[in-house]
Each structure stands twice: as structure tokens, then as C-alpha cells.
């Protein structure tokens, strides 16, 4: 028998950096041998993944060596959409880009729209756009999960994923809603494994029972868009049984604040306040309205008090109780709409009550609250929740997310043992958040502050002097989408094409596949990008695009700035941006070039700083006009957003001894590399829970520059800013929405969250479109990026439409058949697969598997292009026309979040076919033909 070498040589060196195969940002050990990547594994010490790594992460080799990598800057030679380019030098590319941008900045900075997609450097890209002076910047949050982030920040100063997580160690019940499996991916799997070990019940709420829902103990196969109604029924049940934590509500929420009852007046529905602005409560001792911070006040949660002047007021909590105790929200009354039986809703409400109130968790750790009261121990209600895009990507998503947070707060489970836990730098309530900026856009001048913020009322909107016309190209922070804290990337191209509110000169995008899977109405967007005006010029005159790969969007740009792969670049996974902290530690991380590029590519962030210096943008050049930063790495070390605060929090100060606050340290990146690519600083024991009210937390976070001082954080069961918008819609304020938006704002901006049917279904005859259609993210593929990956495409190379068995039977469909799926906007032809473990009214498929022929260096007849398909062709960025001539965005009316999952369809059997429709002309590939076979690692075997 031949001897087996059981101890072979493995690698020359291990370099520890940060993964970018999805948005999770795990720590990875990259093993290098002979200058090549031998293999990639998870970093055991890393706070995000603790050693494990998902399928995408392990497939990083194929991403890094992909034949679809762009190799040089490109200038378009053919027509837009053909994919014909000539290679140009970086000098020429940067000269052209700078000349285009300089002209815009000098004439009208608004005519630049700079939007980034799967950007992990928004702290830089946003600052760059601010220094440029255009109001038109955002990343992809508007078409992703802005409802979740915004509802959470307004309600309690946190949200899920980067903002907070379940207390996996102590929770006794876990509810998982509509999760995208590339968001917080490994931490959720690690957490589920932990819950399984502990025998904790997991409830999955999702129309589709794949992935995490497959291992859940109980599955709620909910009808898309009705999660808010289901949660409202849970709240109804808990209220009916008195299963709410009144002590918690009195201490940490606005449950006792008085709401003014003064119908028809300008203050009706606002919070009653004293002359100092302090909210008033009904004091049970004196039966009078007194300031909520009066030392001996005993607030009531119900009752009525006369405020004088004919006004009276009632505590928030009584209004809340009356709202959700309404029989409309009884489980039996919501069952038909949600598809969840009353028995199941009632059972889950009982489980929540039982875990919260009969299995209380105690941590024997004294702590002191911000009012100075000492608590001997930390007591928690051990029910935890995680939710993501599934409940968020609807036109009722903001209020649905609010309802979910109300549930968490009513049982007292925010930042308590066993409940939801904030991750540093969160909590960051509205009091500590900026307002939006962009009103004062002037030639050759920066904006006065960051674009994205949190309006407190109509006065914070970004409107022209007429009080109506949006300032931003995406109509963010306008009456169309007042709280659009992440912008509306899905509306940029459509609005620019329609010159509504105005046309653009330069569209500048990064890592966003808008000519394919990142757009609604994909075919329409391709036409908008190629459409010309009467003079024969493109309606969107100049398009600059940066991507690492030959994506569909490359073909629609004029100038391509090729980015590096994730193993060739610097990035700061920054606390100023989208942090990777854990509840017990503030964390950030470095991505650095573990491999040197072998092509004419440059990290986009370095290119952006180069362009900024060429344009002389403030903060990017010194007094002599010379570049301040050599490249992005230099910026990461030396840039200070505020004195002492920079992109990375670890090893600051000249000798690296400072944390959070400190002068730049020239050796900072070396310290990160020595530490495995990340920094972690643990929260002291007494600051680990009740961070919204914890004095030790406030001191610790302030010392580290996470906040400037203690921030008041009263959880907002009743959201007064929404009431201000309603008052404007009712005509009570100087500012008023245009007539056509008044009803929309009045009906949906309720300060206590309500459920309303998603817009698309409400506007259509659902007899014609009886079914829902949604996508799910496969755990082994990230957006479009995975398709050129030789390994991942063998796992997900096609995407059948999964059809509930009863729908198959009604339509005469069998496995392998083809079907037409028809929405009010379009029709696609797709292959069908029968399925049982799915909501009976819901069709679904995997997201972003379908590819345009010719893109991504795949064969034009690759299964991704032949049988793969997008649902995007069925979804319009506009709602079905109302006959009023207006362009109604297919978005949440509060935040502008793209309502991807509102889609309504019908299905019909199609004749046998061999390819999906629609089909488009194959793109010319800007890269060389790929090799036929891959035999990776042959030199080592």
C-alpha cells in the first residue's frame, strides 16, 4: 500500500484580512503558497465568525482569480449597452473623469449623482460627495433595508444586524422574520446552533421554509406583506392578557407621555410639553399634568387630564392599548389576510408571554442608570427577535418594523438579559443623529453636513423654496419619502431619465448592477440608459462606473474605473460606517492587500481620493493644492472626522495606546495586521445591558468617542415626528405637501404603527393577480457576484420558479414545465418546480441567479443566461398608473424603501421551451475568453 503523506506542507504564510464575499465581513486567514492563494479559512479569534466561514467565503479563491475581472480602465467605443470599449491608461481615465466632474461642480453640483451599491466605505464616499457639493448621494440602503434601519433608530436607537443582536447566551425564545441569508450570515448560523444546543425554541416567520426556517421548531408560513398584521395580533393577545412590562414601560419609554387631544388644532396629537420642552405625564398622586422628570412624579398609563385652553391629554399607552385591543387585530380577524391560523398566532403569543414573564433571566451585576438610581441586578425578559429584508421591502415596511419593535418594547426585552442587545456604537437614538443636508448646494463649494439624516418634522425636508419640489434627484427627504435616511437608489436612473425633478450631467456609480439585478424594471432601465434626446445625445449624458468585474452595468457606462478584488485592497470596516461590533465589545477591522494586483486596476477608494485631489476638494488637498492622502490606506490612518476620531478606533495616538479617541498613529495598520486584522475592546460588565439608560455605558462610550456625552434615549412607542407630517398634510403647518400626497401622508404616517395592505396589491384587481412573488437569497451566493465563480455557479447555476403544489394543480403545472408569470408590468417565461413548504399564495425563486448573455465572462448559452431569470422584469419602479399622470414610486411612503416584495402576479402554463424570457442581445465582453477547465491547485498536488 502506498504511504499517504499525512503531514504535507501547507502554506508559506497566512495573512489575516476581512472577507468581502458578502456583507457579513468575517475575519479570514488567507493561506498563501508560491504567491498564490492556497486556501481561505475563518479566523478563530474574529468577533463576527469565530473561525467558521460560509460557502461564499470559501469560494473566495475563484472570485479572486475570476476571468471576469476587469483588467484596465475602459472608454466606451460602441453604443451604450453593446459592451464595446477601448482600453485606456489610468492617466487618461482620471483626466477624463476629473474634467467631467470639474465642469459639473463649477456649473451646478446637483447635476452629479453619486450612488454606491454594495459599498463598505460609505463614510468615505459620503464625505467625498459632501465635499464635492452635490446633494445627490446615497448607497444602496434605499433598495435594501432602510425601513428596518430607520424604524429602529426612530423607535429605540437601534435595529438588527449591525445595530444589535439576540442575546444568544440567555434567550429563551427566538423569533426570526424574513431574513436575507447574506446579512449577518455566519453570526445567525452560529447563534441558531447555540440555541439548538440549549434547546431553545426557534420560530421562523417566512413565506418559504428553506434555510434557517427549515431548522426552526415552528414555521409561520406567512403571506408576504402581512407581517405587521401578524405582529399586531401578537400585541393584541399580549395586551388582552396583561402580559406587558409596565415597570419597563414607565422607566424607558414614552408610554406615559401625554398626547394632546385638541381636534382641528395645530397641536392635536403632539406630545404635551412644559415651557422647557419637557414632556408632561399624568401624575397619579396629584391627578395633574406634570413634567416627566419631576422627582416625585408617579406617571399614569391611562386616564385623561385637562391641560387648560380647552385641551385635554391622554397617556400614549392608553391610546396604544385601545389601538391594538381593537377586535380588528384579534388573531381570528387577521388569519385570512396573513395566512396564519388564529390558533398558531395565539400559541406563539403564549410562548412569548411564557418566556418573557415566567422565565425571567437575572444577571447578578449591579448597575446605575442615568438618573443615578442604583440597581442590584440586571433582570431581563428572554425573548429575542431578528428580522431583515423580508418584512422591510414592502410599502408598509416602516410601520411593520415599528410594530415589531413595539412588541419587543412592550414585553421589556430591549437590551436586557435574554432579549435584544445593542452593539456598540449603538444605541444611537434620534437625539444623537444628524438631520439631512443638501439644501445649500453651490458651485465649487461643499455641503455643510452629511447628506443622510433623520428629519424631526417637515422643516427638515430637502425642498426648493416652493416647499414642494424635491432637491434630490431621487426625491429623498421630500414629501414623496420624508424619512428616506438611505436615499432611493432605485429611483435615480428613472428620475434622471424623466427629468423629474431635473436632468443630470454625470451619473457616477460604484458596485451597483443597475442595468440588471439591482434595478426594478430592468428592461426599462436599459432603455433609459440608452435613450437619447432630440439632439441625439444620451438623456443621461455621462456615466462613470467602477466595478471589479464585467457585470451587466459595465456595458452601459461610458468610462470604466476598474476596481481590485477584495484580496487586493484596503478597506476600513469602520465604526463611522457600518460597524461589526458584538454586544460585549466595540470592534472594527481592516481589509488589506494580501495579494498584489497583476492588472491595471486600482482600489476605488484610492481612485476617489485621487479624483478629489484633482478637483481640489476641501479636506483632500493641502493649502498648496497638493494631495493630502497618498491613497486610501493613508486616509484610513490619517483622516480625522473630528479631532481624534478617525476611520479605525484601535491603536490610536502616537504610541498606539489610545482607543477610540487619539491622534493618528503612523503604525496603526501594522497593529491591525499583527492582531489578525481587527480590533476589539470589551464593554465593562456593568455596561453590558440597559445601554439606553446605563451610566457606565455612557461614560465608556463617551471616552471612546462613540458619542459626545450621555444621550437621552426614551423609546418612542408613539412617534411624534410622524404626527408632524400628518399635521402638515391636514393643513395645520406653514409647510404642506402637494395636494396629491396629502392623503398618503395623512393615512400612513400614524404615530402609532398600523398595518395597511401593500400598495401594489391595493391598486390592482387581485382577481387578476391573486399570487405573490418574491425572491430569497441563497446562502451560497451574493447578489450577482457569485455567478462568475466557478464553484458557486455549480451550486446555484439556475433558478426555477418554486410554485406551491395547490397552485401547480390549479394551473396544470408539473416539474419541468414552463410557465408565464404575469404582473401588471410585464411577463416572463420561466421553468417551474413544485413545492409544498411554501405559503400557498406565494411563488418564489433565488435572487440574482439569472444573467444577461455575454456578461460575467460566462458563455452566452450558460444556464444562468438561458434558464436563469430575474423577477425584476415584473416589478416597476413606479406603481400602476392611477390616471392622474403622476409617477407614483413603488416604495414605502415614509422612507422610500423599494417595495420589491409587494409584487402581485398570476401564473399560466406555457408551451414547452428551452430558454427563459425576456432575452436580450448578448453583450460584447470587455474581458478575454475564460479558460475551459479549472484545475485549481494542480501545482501543489
Amino acid at each position: 500500500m502506498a504511504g499517504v503523506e499525512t503531514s504535507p506542507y501547507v502554506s508559506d504564510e497566512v495573512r489575516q484580512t476581512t472577507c468581502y464575499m458578502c456583507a457579513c465581513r468575517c475575519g479570514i486567514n488567507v493561506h498563501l503558497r508560491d504567491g498564490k492563494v492556497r486556501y481561505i479559512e475563518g479566523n478563530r479569534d474574529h468577533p463576527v465568525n469565530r473561525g467558521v466561514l460560509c460557502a461564499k467565503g470559501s469560494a473566495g479563491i475563484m472570485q479572486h482569480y475570476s476571468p471576469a475581472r476587469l483588467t484596465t480602465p475602459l472608454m466606451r467605443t460602441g453604443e451604450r449597452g453593446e459592451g464595446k470599449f477601448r482600453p485606456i491608461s489610468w492617466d487618461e481615465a482620471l483626466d477624463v473623469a476629473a474634467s467631467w466632474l470639474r465642469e459639473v461642480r463649477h456649473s451646478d453640483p446637483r447635476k452629479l449623482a453619486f450612488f454606491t451599491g454594495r459599498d463598505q466605505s460609505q463614510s468615505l464616499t459620503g464625505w467625498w460627495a459632501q465635499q464635492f457639493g452635490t446633494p445627490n448621494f446615497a448607497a444602496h440602503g434605499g433598495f435594501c433595508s432602510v425601513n428596518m434601519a430607520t424604524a429602529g433608530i426612530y423607535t429605540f436607537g437601534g435595529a438588527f444586524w449591525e445595530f444589535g443582536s439576540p442575546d444568544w447566551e440567555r434567550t429563551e425564545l427566538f423569533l426570526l422574520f424574513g431574513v436575507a441569508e447574506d446579512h449577518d450570515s455566519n453570526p445567525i448560523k452560529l447563534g441558531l446552533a447555540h440555541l439548538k444546543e440549549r434547546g431553545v425554541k426557534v420560530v421562523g416567520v417566512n413565506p418559504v421554509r428553506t434555510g434557517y426556517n427549515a431548522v426552526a421548531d415552528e414555521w409561520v408560513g406567512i403571506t408576504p406583506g402581512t407581517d405587521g398584521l401578524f405582529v399586531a395580533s401578537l400585541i393584541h393577545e399580549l395586551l388582552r392578557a396583561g402580559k406587558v412590562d409596565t415597570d419597563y414601560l414607565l422607566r424607558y419609554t414614552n408610554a406615559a407621555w401625554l398626547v394632546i387631544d385638541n381636534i382641528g388644532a395645530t397641536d392635536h396629537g403632539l406630545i404635551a410639553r412644559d415651557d422647557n420642552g419637557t414632556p408632561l405625564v399624568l401624575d397619579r398622586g396629584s391627578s395633574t399634568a406634570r413634567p416627566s422628570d419631576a422627582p416625585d412624579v408617579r406617571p399614569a398609563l391611562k386616564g385623561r387630564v385637562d391641560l387648560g385652553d380647552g385641551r385635554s391629554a391622554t397617556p400614549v399607552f392608553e391610546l396604544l392599548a385601545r389601538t391594538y385591543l381593537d377586535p380588528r387585530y384579534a388573531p381570528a380577524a387577521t388569519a385570512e389576510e396573513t395566512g396564519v391560523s388564529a390558533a398558531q398566532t395565539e400559541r406563539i403569543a403564549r410562548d412569548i408571554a411564557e418566556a418573557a414573564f415566567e422565565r425571567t433571566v437575572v444577571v447578578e451585576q449591579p448597575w446605575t442608570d442615568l438618573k443615578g438610581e442604583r440597581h442590584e441586578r440586571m433582570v431581563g425578559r428572554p425573548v429575542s427577535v431578528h428580522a431583515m429584508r423580508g418584512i422591510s421591502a414592502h410599502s408598509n415596511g416602516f410601520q411593520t418594523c415599528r410594530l415589531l419593535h413595539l412588541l419587543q418594547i412592550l414585553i421589556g426585552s430591549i437590551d436586557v438579559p435574554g432579549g435584544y442587545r445593542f452593539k456598540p456604537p449603538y444605541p444611537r437614538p434620534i437625539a444623537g443623529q444628524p438631520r439631512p443636508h443638501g439644501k445649500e448646494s453651490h458651485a465649487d463649494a461643499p455641503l455643510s453636513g452629511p447628506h443622510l439624516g433623520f428629519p424631526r418634522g417637515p422643516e427638515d425636508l430637502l425642498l426648493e423654496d416652493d416647499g414642494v419640489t424635491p432637491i434630490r434627484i431621487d426625491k429623498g427627504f421630500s414629501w414623496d419619502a420624508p424619512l428616506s435616511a438611505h436615499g432611493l437608489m432605485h429611483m435615480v436612473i428613472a428620475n434622471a431619465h424623466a427629468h423629474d425633478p431635473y436632468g443630470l450631467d454625470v451619473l457616477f456609480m460604484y458596485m451597483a448592477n443597475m442595468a440588471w439585478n439591482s434595478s426594478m424594471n430592468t428592461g426599462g432601465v436599459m432603455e433609459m440608459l440608452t435613450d437619447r434626446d432630440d439632439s441625439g445625445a444620451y438623456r443621461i449624458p455621462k456615466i462613470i462606473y467602477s466595478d471589479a468585474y464585467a457585470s451587466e452595468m459595465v456595458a452601459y457606462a461610458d468610462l470604466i474605473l476598474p476596481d481590485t478584488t477584495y484580496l487586493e485592497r484596503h478597506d476600513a470596516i469602520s465604526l463611522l460606517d457600518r460597524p461589526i461590533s458584538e454586544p460585549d465589545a466595540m470592534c472594527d477591522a481592516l481589509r488589506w492587500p494580501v495579494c498584489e494586483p497583476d492588472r491595471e486596476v486600482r482600489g476605488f477608494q484610492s481612485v476617489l481620493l485621487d479624483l478629489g485631489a484633482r478637483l481640489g476638494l476641501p479636506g483632500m488637498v493641502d493649502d498648496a493644492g497638493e494631495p493630502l492622502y497618498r491613497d486610501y490606506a493613508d486616509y484610513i490612518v490619517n483622516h480625522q472626522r473630528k479631532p481624534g476620531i478617525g476611520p479605525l478606533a484601535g491603536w490610536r495616538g502616537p504610541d498606539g495606546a489610545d482607543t477610540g479617541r487619539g491622534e493618528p498613529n503612523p503604525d496603526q495598520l501594522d497593529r491591525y495586521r499583527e492582531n489578525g486584522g481587527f480590533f476589539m475592546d470589551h464593554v465593562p460588565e456593568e455596561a453590558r445591558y440597559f445601554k439606553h439608560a446605563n451610566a457606565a455605558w455612557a461614560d465608556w462610550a463617551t471616552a471612546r468617542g462613540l458619542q459626545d456625552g450621555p444621550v437621552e434615549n426614551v423609546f418612542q412607542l408613539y412617534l411624534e415626528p410622524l404626527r408632524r407630517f400628518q399635521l402638515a398634510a391636514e393643513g395645520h403647518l406653514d409647510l404642506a405637501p402637494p395636494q396629491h400626497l396629502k392623503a398618503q401622508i395623512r393615512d400612513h404616517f400614524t404615530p402609532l404603527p398600523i398595518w395597511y395592505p401593500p400598495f401594489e396589491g391595493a391598486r390592482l384587481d387581485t382577481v387578476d393577480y391573486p399570487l405573490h412573488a418574491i425572491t430569497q437569497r441563497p446562502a451560497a451566493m451574493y447578489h450577482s457576484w457569485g455567478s462568475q465563480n466557478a464553484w458557486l455557479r455549480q451550486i446555484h447555476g439556475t433558478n426555477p420558479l418554486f410554485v406551491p403544489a395547490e397552485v401547480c394543480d390549479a394551473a396544470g403545472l408539473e416539474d419541468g414545465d414552463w410557465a408565464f408569470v404575469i404582473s401588471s408590468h410585464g411577463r416572463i417565461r420561466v421553468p417551474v418546480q413544485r413545492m409544498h413548504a411554501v405559503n400557498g399564495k406565494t411563488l418564489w425563486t433565488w435572487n440574482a441567479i439569472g444573467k444577461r448573455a455575454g456578461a460575467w465572462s460566462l458563455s452566452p448559452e450558460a444556464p444562468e443566461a438561458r434558464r436563469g431569470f430575474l423577477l425584476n422584469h415584473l416589478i416597476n419602479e413606479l406603481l400602476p398608473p392611477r390616471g392622474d399622470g403622476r409617477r407614483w414610486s413603488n416604495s414605502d411612503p415614509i422612507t422610500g424603501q423599494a417595495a420589491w416584495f409587494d409584487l402581485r402576479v398570476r401564473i399560466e402554463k406555457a408551451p414547452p421551451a428551452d430558454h427563459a424570457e425576456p432575452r436580450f442581445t448578448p453583450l460584447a465582453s470587455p474581458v478575454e475568453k475564460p479558460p475551459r477547465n479549472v484545475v485549481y491547485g494542480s501545482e501543489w498536488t
Partner: protein
Amino acid sequence: MTALPALTEAKLGLVIDLDTCVGCHACVVSCKEWNTGGYGAPLGDRDAYGDTPEGAWLNRIHSYEISPENGPAEIVHFPKSCLHCDDAPCVTVCPTGASYKRSEDGIVLVDEDRCIGCGLCAWACPYGAREMDPVEKVMKKCTLCVDRIYNDNIPEEDRVPACVRTCPANARHFGDLADPESDVSQLVAARGGMDLMPALGTKPVNKYLPPRRKADRDSGTPHADRLPDAPGGFLGWLDATLDRLG
């Protein structure tokens, strides 16, 4: 024909937890990336960017839908690789001795120098756990990462199969199933670990832990689980509660 050892000193193998496997394919790809640069020929991918991509994999996940009579449909994710059987029919069928089972630890391997690519072993394996490499034309199978588990060049804690090292759901466990005191044997005993298709008599070393019964099966009568109404109605309850708080 090739002989099996009468007894192996150890029975190294995997215990796979079907209750926690979410079907994420982490193990599948980690296996591929370690092994394509490790034991034997690389794991080739034919037509890698073309119309019919086909690669060699040592571990794959199959997903099955089941429809119980007393509850909603369920999905089970089922990772499958070589089970390193005690009575491995893939070994006894091998005409050249290329397929063999190690007497020291029970790992079933292919000596690729002796493999003539006849494919008999893949035909004999009832689990479909062997794959002919479409590029290299040699038989590939799980080696239990024999080039990791004893490897002095990697840290001791990493000397486990790549699939076990990476599994984010902690659904894969590695150890000696001949030792009743080992963690994996204890896990099998505690959770009712099962052989795959035991009637075939292959005596697989790998074990599968079955999914636990779902809570939404047999979910009871409509109102049995309902919370009782608060005494005095909700607002009455609220008054009493606030009085208690003082």
C-alpha cells in the same frame, strides 16, 4: 478484488446533525478548496464558465421536502460524503487495490497512482459518494482530510476535516466512533444517531443525528394555548399593576 482490514484500530468519522444543518453549503465549498490543493489530483471543473459546468466534489448537500400528515411541509438538508464503511463495497470491488481502507483509522482512500478509472467503485457504492473527476479522470472521494487531521504544519485545533472546521451551524462533528467515550460516540448515543441505509450491511462509520420533532406538528386544538384574559379586562389589570408598582 481488494481486501478490507478485519478490524481497524480506530473508526474516524463524521457525525452530521440534520437538526441544525441549514443547507448553506459552507462544508461543500470548504472541502473543495482544501482538497483541490491537497490529497491527490486537483478537483477539476470541466467547462467551468460554460454551458454545462461539471466539477468533482467530495461532499454535496441534497435537500428533501417531506409532507407530514399532521403538520406543514418540512425541508431536510442532507449533506452527503463517503461514510467510510466498515464493510465498504467500493473497496472490495476495486480490481487494482487502488481503493483501500486504512487499518489504523478506518479511512477509505483511493491510491490515485493505482486507479485505472474503471468506475466500478462508484457503481458499487450505494450512497453515490464517489465521483470521477471530469478533468483528471481519476476517482475522487472524501479522505476525511487525512492530510489535515495528522498534519504537524497546522495548529492542533485545526486538525479536523475542513468541513468540520468551517461549519457555521455546528452541524458536523469529527472523532473516533470506535471509542464509546469519545464526544462523537456520546453525541450519537444521546441523540439517537443513525446509520444511513443500515439494511445494506455496509456498516457506515459516519452517523446522522435525526431532526427533532417540529413544534408545529400536532399543534393542538384551536384555543387550548390561548393566553387567559387579564382579570378585570386589560385596563382593570393595568390599574392593579400600577398600584403594585407604587
